[in-house]
Structures are given as C-alpha cells and as structure tokens.
C-alpha cells in the first residue's frame, strides 16, 4: 500500500522516505483546522468522534473565526500547517504550484469504493486541478450565490417576488422602488458587484446576454476582455448606483447579515451559507433566496471550498482516510443542524437538501439546485499567484467607474492593465 501510494505520487510530490505516507508504527494523530463558526465546529467535533480507526485519532484545532487568514499565513511560514485545513480554491491553486501540498489527483481518480472523482460535482473537480493536473486538495463544499430578498418589503411595495428567470432590469427597477423606504437606505446591496471581485461578477451579465466573460479561465487565464454586453452591464450598474438604489463601492458589508435579518435591507447578493446563519438568528421578516437575474440564459457564479494537506503531513494514508470521512460522513452529521453548503461529493448532498426542506427554506433548496445545474457559470476571482495585485488595480480603475468618478471610456484601459498582469504572470 505504501509503495503504491509513493509510486503514484512520486512524480508530483517528490516522495522521500520518512516524510511521506508510510504506514505508522503507532497511533497517528491527524489534525484538522476549519474556519467554521463555533457551533458548526462543535458539530464537526462530535461527528469526528465517530471516526473509528485503531491507528488514527483526529484532533480538531481551534481558530478564532475570522482570523483564519492570518492564522493560515503564519502557519504556512512556520511550516506548521495542520494535516487537513479548510482552504479556498485560490489557496489550493497557489500552494500547489509552490509544491506545498500533497497531490491527491491519483488517489481520487483511482480510489477504491465510492470515493472517486466521478462522484463529485464535475466543474468543482475541474477547478481544483492545476494546469498540470495536480490536485492539492479536494473540494468539500460548493458555494452557490444568489439574491436574498425581504419578501415582506416586496409584498408591501406591490412587487412580484424574485424568482428564477427574472431579469437584471427587473432587479434594478425593484431596487429603485424599494430604496429609502421603511428604514432601508439602498434597495440592493451588491457587494459582489461593487467590491474587489466585481469585474468577475459582472461576467454574469455579459455571458447571460450572449457575450464573453471577463476572463476565459480564472485558474489559468489567457486574456481579459470587456465586450459590448459587458459594457452594457457596467453602465446599468453605474446608473443604479447614481440614483441611489444600489449601494456604492465602499459600502461596509460587514453587518449586512444582521441588517437584513432586521429587515433593513430589501435585497442583497449573498451566498447560500447565510441560510445557516439565518436559521440561528431567526429573522423577523419573511425572506427568500432567488437565483441571480439573467438577460437571456441563466448564469451563475461558481465557487467551491475544500480541504488541503501540506507536504509534510506525517502519514498520508491516515490523513486521506480522515479526509474521506470528512467529505462523506461528517457532512451528514453536521449539515442538518447547520446547513452551510451543499457538499461537492454528490451522494452527501441529500442530507443538506433534506435539512433545508425541513427548515422550510424551500426557496434556498430551489435556488441551490438550479445553481448547481446551471449551464453557464463564471468564476468568482482569479486564483493565480499574482491575484493579489488585481485587487489594487480594480480599486484604482474599475470602482471609480462604478461610482461615477471615471467615465466608462476608461474601462478598456483597466482591461489592458489586467492583460498586462496576465502576460507577466504566465
């Protein structure tokens, strides 16, 4: 078993004697670190207690939630990363290309039993492969996005509730009607459109209208572009910001959840994970979750988070066993109480949808299912090494267009700069 594992991973990871997954001669502890809330972590801990293996004990580590990024940075530098840690797609891509992570590609392609690549959501699998086919981690949970809306506010204003198939124009019109009513200032908080990832989110408009996305591939981009449909989308957004119906760039979205639950925000872009938070908060308003609006074809944002393992993990086999357990059984135990996201491992998705249906979050179920099945998807942000620099360019060149400080004619200049980065990076 050891020899096979080593041989399989040799090419990718440079397996060397003692560090790599040899079978242990004593119980091995596998450490796990997540960014989940305290409640979810407690549920995970309980579920992990059922992991029965003579040689392996699992230990869940604490992190001050929200400080996960800082924690990860210092652990990486100190070479003390836990055996299994929650990671974003971009972390996985960047760390893998630096040779920091174990490559699971082989294990998951040729795994035994049900835990195989074809049982995962296909696009997630694709996105987690690097350019040379390595997989530094396995996707665990899918992130789907949509629009959370305050149903009470809509009914009061005599507007139809958002649902699959609604258009961007309808959304902006609703935002205009709902702004400055009943304690709400803006009709729509669209942090994803106005924040650092805004240019990517705008791809949903252009792709849905039959145009091109902002970039051809967020993992290995070759070009960035802003075609006519894209420009149209930017113009509509700029107009909506100008008339006060959409919050401008710079709006602090930290308290959006609480404000939405308090009924002060009619519509906000957001991820399906807010459902879990709302279940605990029990907002006083009737609310729902709708897919993003479209122009012609349904399009959605696509993202997944996963679990990664550092190169220096003591026992790869033991770690993979726990990884498998996390991706399959643990979600069954955790999601009913805290339905944060649909797992990437399709068989485990049932417990998620059941939990939501039970909590009567039917709109969430419908929207998530629709998102997972959407034919057109766009990436959330670049995952490349130089992704950090994109944010600054966006702040300097794209956001001022949205706020009306720079004319839309400056858009090509911004795209050029991004293309410059792409060229430099490759």
């Amino acid at each position, binding site marked *: 078993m050891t020899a096979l594992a080593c041989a399989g991973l040799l090419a990718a990871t440079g397996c060397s004697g003692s560090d790599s997954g040899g079978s242990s001669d004593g119980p091995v502890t596998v450490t796990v670190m997540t960014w989940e809330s305290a409640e979810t972590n407690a549920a995970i801990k309980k579920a992990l207690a059922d992991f029965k293996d003579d040689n392996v004990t699992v230990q869940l580590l604490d992190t001050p939630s929200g400080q996960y990024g800082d924690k990860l940075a210092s652990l990486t530098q100190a070479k003390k990363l836990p055996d299994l840690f929650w990671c974003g797609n971009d972390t996985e891509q960047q760390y893998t290309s630096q040779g920091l992570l174990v490559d699971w590609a082989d294990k998951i392609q040729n795994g035994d039993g049900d835990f195989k690549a074809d049982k995962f959501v296909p696009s997630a699998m694709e996105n987690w492969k690097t350019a040379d086919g390595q997989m530094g981690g396995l996707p665990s949970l899918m992130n789907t996005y949509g629009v959370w809306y305050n149903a009470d506010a809509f009914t009061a204003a005599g507007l139809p509730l958002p649902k699959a198939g609604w258009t961007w124009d309808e959304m902006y019109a609703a935002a205009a009607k709902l702004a400055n009513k009943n304690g709400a200032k803006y009709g729509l908080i669209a942090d994803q459109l106005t924040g650092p990832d805004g240019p990517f989110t705008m791809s949903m408009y252009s792709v849905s209208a039959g145009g091109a996305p902002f970039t051809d591939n967020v993992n290995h981009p070759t070009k960035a572009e802003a075609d006519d449909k894209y420009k149209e989308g930017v113009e509509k957004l700029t107009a909506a910001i100008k008339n006060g119906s959409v919050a401008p760039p710079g709006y602090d979205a930290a308290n959006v959840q609480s404000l939405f639950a308090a009924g002060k925000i009619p519509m906000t872009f957001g991820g399906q994970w807010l459902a879990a938070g709302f279940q605990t908060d029990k907002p006083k308003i009737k609310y729902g979750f709708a897919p993003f609006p479209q122009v012609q074809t349904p399009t959605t944002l696509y993202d997944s988070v996963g679990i990664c393992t550092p190169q220096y993990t003591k026992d790869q086999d033991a770690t993979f066993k726990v990884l498998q357990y996390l991706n399959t059984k643990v979600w069954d135990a955790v999601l009913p109480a805290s339905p944060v996201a649909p797992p990437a491992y399709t068989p485990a998705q049932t417990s998620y949808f059941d939990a939501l249906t039970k909590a009567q979050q039917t709109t969430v179920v419908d929207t998530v299912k629709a998102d997972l099945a959407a034919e057109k998807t766009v990436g959330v942000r670049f995952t490349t090494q130089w992704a*950090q620099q994109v944010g600054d360019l966006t702040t300097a060149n794209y956001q001022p267009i949205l706020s009306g400080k720079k004319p839309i004619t400056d858009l090509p200049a911004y795209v050029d700069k991004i293309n410059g980065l792409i060229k430099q990076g490759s």
Partner: protein
Amino acid sequence: MSRNAGSDVKAAYLFIAPAVIGFLVFVGYPLIRSFYLALTKYNGLTDPIFVGLGNFRRLFSTDPAFWPSLRATGYLVLLYVPLSLVLGLALAMFLNQRFAGVRVVRTLAYLPVVLPAVATITLWKFMLDPQVGLLNTILDRIGLPTSLWLQSPKMAMPSVVLVMLWGVGGTMIIFLAALQAVPTELYEAAKVDGAGPWAVFFRITLPVISPIMLLQVILQTTAALQTFNQPKILTGGGPGFSTNVLMLGIYNNGFPTLGKIPQLGYASAQVWVLFIIIIAVIALTAKFSSLWTYSDNTPD
C-alpha cells in the same frame, strides 16, 4: 580613584548588557535583514530571489496603490499632527488650572489612552456607522447634517483622524507635565510687568516648553506616519484608496488575505520607503528646530 573608574566601567557594561543585546537583535538585525529582503522577491516559503531595485521600480511606476497610499499618509499626518498638538496643549492648559473636579476631568481625558486599542476602535467603527451608529443618531436629533463617515471617500480620512484624536489625552498628559515644570517666578514676573494672557502664552509658556514641543512634534509625526490600527480596523483602506496608508499597503503585501501568496520582498521595500520618509522628516524638523525652540542654557 582608578579602581573606582574600573569598577564603574565593568558595572556599566553589566547594567547595559540586556539593552545592548536587545538593540543588536531587535534593531540591528531587522534593519539589515529587511534591507536585504527589499532587494529580493520572497514569498516566505522558497528562497529569496535577488531582483535589485526591481521592487522600488515597481513601487514608483506600476503599483496602482502606492502613490495613493503616499497621499493618504500625507493627508493623515497633515490633519492629525497639528490638531493633536493644538488640542493636546489646549487641554493641558485648561487642566493646569485649579477648579473643582479638575482631577476627575484629567483622569477622564486620559482614560481613552488606557483602554485596549482594538476594543475602542471597533467601538468607534460601530458608532460611526451611517445607519446604526450613535453619532448620526445624535446629529439627526439635534438637527445637524449627518454623514456617511467612514464610507464616504471625502470623509473617511477625517473620520479616521477623529477616532485617533479621541486619544488626545496621551498628548495632553505630556504637555501637562511640561506646563507644571515651568517655573512660577516667570509667571509672577510677567504679572508684575502687567502682561496679558496672550503675551504670557506666546512669550513665556511656549518658549519654555518648546523643547517638549519639539519632542512632541517628532514623536507625533513619526507615530502618525506609522498609523496602522485605525485604518485597518475602521476601513481596511477604503473607500477606494482614501485611507490606504503606507502601513496598510505594507501589511496587505506582506500578510495578504486568506491564501494569497505573500510578497515579503516587496513589502520590505515599502518598509524602507517609509523608513526613509521618517528619517527625512525628523532630520528636517530637527534642522529647523533651532529657529523656534528655546535653548535652556541662557541665564535667567
């Protein structure tokens, strides 16, 4: 005598040893190492790659955040330092009098300085929230115009400075100590000559405390140039780059958000730019100080 001198020297080295070691380790070593790193491309994981002045070239020509961060830092210093000094001195003079409750006011004025910065800054962030914050509520009730504060590109930096000024008690207390050290004979002589309060202030108080004023100018400016906590917690650099001071730029490059690869060499280059600015400011201030500070060696 000579025996005394010898034991003096030995004792001196013993007493000063910890501080010397500290200097070498915490001042000397970082200076050298960070200078070296500034000339490299380094992500903390693989070995540094020498790039010469490449980082500096990138900083000054292609980095979209750098010049705005210089502007933001400059704006902060120009707003904060004069206000802090004037308010601090005014408060100190106010509290240098005897009146019922002066002790209480003094304590309260210094109170914000004692409290944990993270706690008070997040409190202020909450208070400045345009929708749920206390400040806009109060302004609204008394009929004054409200503002978006930290979310307005124009008001963001003034808001940050406002939060910093809440801690003016720190400046005040040093001025207070200085004022209390002014010899009273000077005031009495002034009274005899019939000097009015303004004359007393400009001809006696200011000159006598001018060495402290110099110290404060230097300390406050250096501190202002290195402001980090407030912009980080209050705005994270936004809206746009309006509050993205140099220290924030350094932090974002050296310790970027979740999972992005750090650019430690680049951040080190930025550190050195900041360092040189600080040295330049201090040198300039010190150079012109003789024009306005009162040297305390003149006979009375």
